[in-house]
């Protein structure tokens, strides 16, 4: 596994999803942030991955039909 000092762009790519998931430790996050400030390509890659996640979330959203909520409420135990 490479580190930021050996191949920063490869390392940045490797940690990009965990970075977006906010599960990196403080050291790795700081290294990734530093690289993203310095590298235009990785910064664009990061913005793309971030926009894609947001876009997928919005596109996949389908509100619950109101009738279904009534049907669920009707399943409650009668008092």
């Amino acid at each position: 596994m490479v580190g930021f000092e050996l191949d920063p762009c490869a390392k940045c790519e490797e940690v990009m999803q965990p970075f977006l998931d906010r599960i990196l430790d403080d050291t790795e996050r700081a290294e990734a942030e530093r690289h993203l400030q310095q590298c235009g390509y990785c910064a664009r890659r990061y913005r793309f991955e971030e926009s894609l996640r947001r876009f997928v979330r919005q596109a996949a959203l389908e509100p619950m039909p109101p009738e279904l909520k009534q049907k669920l409420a009707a399943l409650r135990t009668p008092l």
Partner: protein
Amino acid sequence: MSETEPRRLAVEARNRVRFEEEALDLSDQVYRVARRLVSSREEAEDLMQETYARAFRSWRSYTPGTNLRAWLLRILTNLNIDRGRRRQRAPDEQPLEEGDYFLYNKLERSVSDGTGDEARVVERLSQDDVVNALSAVPHDFRDVLVLVDLGDFTYQDAAQILDIPIGTVMSRLHRGRRILKRELADKVEG
């Protein structure tokens, strides 16, 4: 019946009503996940009704103060798996060497204005592209992807809901996201 029995029953009724109300308040969020775990709206509605019927029957097994949304999703994913989804085709074994770059490169190439505005690059995809690409992700991977990326569950919650180790959650999520991107890339012209 002892003297305290009516009181006990009253407390239990109150707890049950509170449980049912909290579960119903979460139904929009549960549906959001359910809808993308299955292919059609009808299936999602059936699954929701089965889930809530079971939840209302077994409310006593819920521990108050714990994550009710995760508890409901655990019932829902179990019911979904019990519905015979096991007959699905073999897990996706196609190589995904292109990694995360592939979709990005393809979309970048298809945008000619060269502004480097990544939000606009993503808008080359339509809502249908996303919905169809998600439904093309094999179930084992999609379950994790939907719970974490659409349902905002932590890896730990997803592991408990699906009753799989957290390492499996992480590897399925990783692969599921790549499969999703490959499917999206297939929908981009050029």
